[in-house]
């Protein structure tokens, strides 16, 4: 089955970014396809390559990048939301791309299920 995922909150501040990742990982492990993870609202902050969490904590941004690399998951950051919050190509982590909101609607159309994670 094809899943679309919408992430509405940034890393660390809300658990939404963690739950979305664990869901996506479990879906891949079960043989499902992640059609796209779309980052909206403060969710765009998941894509900042400048984050440096403490050494004994999980690295949320790198986890996403690795998922994109290993499983070809499409990580899309909303351009309008990103500009408001200072996420641009200059600080974009690997595996993420910046695009329009149409990508979210398209994911709703093409995926079998769209699941929202937020606050």
């Amino acid at each position: 089955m094809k899943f679309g995922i919408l992430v509405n909150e940034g890393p660390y501040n809300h658990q939404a970014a963690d739950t979305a990742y664990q869901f996506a990982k479990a879906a891949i492990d079960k043989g499902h396809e992640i059609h796209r993870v779309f980052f909206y609202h403060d969710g765009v902050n998941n894509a900042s390559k400048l984050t440096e969490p403490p050494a004994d904590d999980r690295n949320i941004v790198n986890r996403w990048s690795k998922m994109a690399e290993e499983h070809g998951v499409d990580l899309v950051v909303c351009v309008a939301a990103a500009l408001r919050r200072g996420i641009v190509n200059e600080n974009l982590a690997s595996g993420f791309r910046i695009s329009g909101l149409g990508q979210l609607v398209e994911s709703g159309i093409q995926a079998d299920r769209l699941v929202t994670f937020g606050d």
Partner: protein
Amino acid sequence: MDEESSGTVKKFAFINRKAPYGTIYALESLEVVLISAAFDQDVSLVFMDDGVYQLKKGQGTKAVGMKNFSPTYRALEGYDIEKLYVEKESLESRGLTEEDLIVDVEVLTAEEMATLMDEQDVVMSF
């Protein structure tokens, strides 16, 4: 819009449960709604809980220094987005009536709203 998606028509519902201005969800939800118009889907907007406040007439944001985006709800018709649903109980428990709203909406009971949600293919919550 790419080839693959151009033939499909799904029922999309955007659920608005947050008040405007205190957080950005109402404004950014509206931005998704506007974009969705280009995809020729069957779009419904649901306003319940504090989301009904988004449609309140008479918003004036000069003193808070933010942008008043409430006129955009009036523009939705021009994008062929005409299914706006408001939950009756949410409206009444806030002392509001349809007269207080900036656009025409259909008021549904909780039970009718539940049925509407059940029929959707895609539900996005903001």
